[in-house]
């Protein structure tokens, strides 16, 4: 424990003095970058480079056809008109092989992850780490004792080349998120690259989390990683994903997909801290299916991006399964974050609780959508949704759009939303005990976020507090 505290202290010190923790970029000279826009040639080239089985190439080509035929989502949330897909490169790869030792990772890239604290966190508190830079995973490693229990943590590309794993990928890949789900799902399946494949065998509990970190360094590029996690019956996993990118003036696109299979009696905790730069269109799709007596826990912190469409979905198929969703979004100037979650309760005695917070400032816009669907067979299902918004000025916005579709008379569904501001009385109280105005406001915002930061892994909780501090300092001239 002492070590962990020491680590976090160091991290917070770095963040305190270095406001550009995320905003550094390296040249992509010598990188392999495919032409902007999309074509059959590009899709074939990606597949060929990855030396994929025929079924995967077929899937990509089918997805491309669907992508070309589907319309852009109309009248849905914030505008994505500024996103010109003809000027996004679908594939940018550093000229490096995937390494299992940081010493083998090229200097620039290694520096990037060091500055983000990844190798340090790996030494201190993680069972395994994957690091993606632009379109490809550059580092992947897992502790031997975890591997010895039969846990698989690798890239989907490598899994496809492994004769034992390839059938598993084939069985699960694309089964939860169909390519016709929406236009960006189709795009994702056409050009996906990188991401993680995790398989936890029956009854295995991982002592530490696994963490994948996604870094998009290239300008005007897309990141389309695919995360596929299978937690077999009775197994237990905590998976952490982090994302960030430096700021560019051109639009970047993130259209990843996350498919999570949580079997009977298993537990999966999926934590995300997303801090994309503010030129990012984050159009990400995440979905979990949960078996009987199993538990799905989402912890989601969204701080970055220009526009986000993000609604992790949980399908509670098994009886007595539970889902907890804890989320926070922070929208500042130029940010329009459309987030929320969807829970489908199909099994009897299933329970879901959704607890989210949003903070808006400097004209930032937060929209929280929740969708609770209770199926006909979900006897005695219970769901509660609570959404609290904090607005730091008069020209920011916060909207809540709850939807409920209950088809079982014995189910109970509740929704509660509050929107508030920081009261002048609170600021006066804290200032009259010696806090500056900025400190007082930061204290209130951190306090508001506290129920969520408590759920985050330690180093991310500190990181979130620092992000709030940076944002708040910027807010007061």
């Amino acid at each position, binding site marked *: 424990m002492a070590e962990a505290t020491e680590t976090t202290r160091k991290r917070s010190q770095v963040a305190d003095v270095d406001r550009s923790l995320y905003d550094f970029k390296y040249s992509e000279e010598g990188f392999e970058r495919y032409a902007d826009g999309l074509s059959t040639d590009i899709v074939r080239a990606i597949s060929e480079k990855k030396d994929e089985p025929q079924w995967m190439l077929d899937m990509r080509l089918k997805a491309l056809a669907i992508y070309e035929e589907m319309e852009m989502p109309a009248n849905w949330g914030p505008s994505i008109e500024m996103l010109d897909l003809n000027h996004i490169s679908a594939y940018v790869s550093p000229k490096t092989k995937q390494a299992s030792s940081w010493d083998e990772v090229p200097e620039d890239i290694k520096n990037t992850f060091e500055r983000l604290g990844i190798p340090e966190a790996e030494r201190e508190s993680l069972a395994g780490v994957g690091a993606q830079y632009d379109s490809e995973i550059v580092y992947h490693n897992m502790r031997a004792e975890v591997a010895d229990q039969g846990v698989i943590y690798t890239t989907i590309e490598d899994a496809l080349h492994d004769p034992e794993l390839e059938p598993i990928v084939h069985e699960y890949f694309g089964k939860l998120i169909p390519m016709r789900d929406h236009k960006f799902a189709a795009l994702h399946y056409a050009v996906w690259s990188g991401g993680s494949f995790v398989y936890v065998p029956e009854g295995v509990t991982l002592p530490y989390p696994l963490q994948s970190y996604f870094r998009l360094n290239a300008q005007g590029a897309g990141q389309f990683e695919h995360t596929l996690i299978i937690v077999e019956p009775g197994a237990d996993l905590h998976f952490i994903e982090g994302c960030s990118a430096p700021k560019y003036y051109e639009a970047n696109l993130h259209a990843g997909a996350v498919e999570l299979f949580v079997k009977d009696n298993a537990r999966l905790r999926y934590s995300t801290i997303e801090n994309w730069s503010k030129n990012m269109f984050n159009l990400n799709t995440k979905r979990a299916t949960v078996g009987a007596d199993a538990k799905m826990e989402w912890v989601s912190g969204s701080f970055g991006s220009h526009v986000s469409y993000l609604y992790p979905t949980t399908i509670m198929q098994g009886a007595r399964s539970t889902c907890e969703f804890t989320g926070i979004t922070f929208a500042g100037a130029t940010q329009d974050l459309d987030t929320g979650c969807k829970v489908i309760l199909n099994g009897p005695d299933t329970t879901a609780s959704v607890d989210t917070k949003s903070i808006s400032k400097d004209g930032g816009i937060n929209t929280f959508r929740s969708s609770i669907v209770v199926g006909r067979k979900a006897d005695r299902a219970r769901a509660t949704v609570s959404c609290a918004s904090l607005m730091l000025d008069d020209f920011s916005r916060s909207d809540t759009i709850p939807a409920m579709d209950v088809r079982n008379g014995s189910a109970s569904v509740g929704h509660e939303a509050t929107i508030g501001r920081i009261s*002048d009385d*609170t600021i006066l109280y804290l200032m*009259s005990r*010696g806090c500056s*105005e900025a400190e007082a406001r930061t204290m209130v915002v*951190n*306090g*508001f976020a*506290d*129920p969520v930061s408590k759920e985050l892994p330690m180093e991310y909780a500190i990181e979130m507090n620092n992000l709030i501090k940076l944002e708040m300092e910027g807010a007061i001239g």
Partner: protein
Amino acid sequence: MSDQLLTISGLSAGTEDTPILHDINLSIGAGETHVLMGPNGAGKSTLGHVIMGDPVFQVTGGSIMFDGQDVTDKGADKRSLAGIFLSYQAPVEVPGVPLYSFLRTICQMRPELKTTARKFRARVGEIADQLDIDQSFLTRELNVGFSGGEKKKIEMLQLLLLRPKLAILDETDSGLDVDALSIVSKAIEAYRADCDGALLMITHNTRILERLSVDHTHVMVRGNLVADGPASLIDDIDSNGFARFENELAQKGVE
């Protein structure tokens, strides 16, 4: 008058559209105990808030000197660091901010109070015992779900920790039961004894004043300070009320 801790000269203040305080002159010397009395709505709390620097009120004339510096235009944080403390009638609740870490933060930002974590913990424990505050309160969120009496005790805890040069207690005694009142009285005595701090007590309750040696009593009516007398003025008001002062003010032609 040069050794005064607080000197308010010709102070007028109010909200954007309503003048509240008119030409207030008030001086408090280091270590003195002053009592401010007056009928409801006279502007007593407003004066306390204006001395603390509440931005809701605008100063339209006059000045506030504290400990040798002009604080008229200073923010509440600067005044707090200079040694002014205001105990609120209704302390706010701040969700998600643990009481203990809040106390640590507001002490560590003062060079004269900076100390090790161990010594700080001992000091907080000592004061909490003195005020009959259950230690479990320290891990709770600042004032959240606390009863009125508990909130006042937490105000006294902060008073004794911060050791200000001037404490303004805005009806700290109101709405307290007998036990809580006795604890608050003890806290005020401890502040007088340990910190040799000056006090400005805004109160209706003369019982809390019985155990204090009061140097000056001020009476405020409709935003005017109309009397400055010795401790015995309290007994006078206790038996005769404020009618006399209100009539005098009316005769002077103040509406």
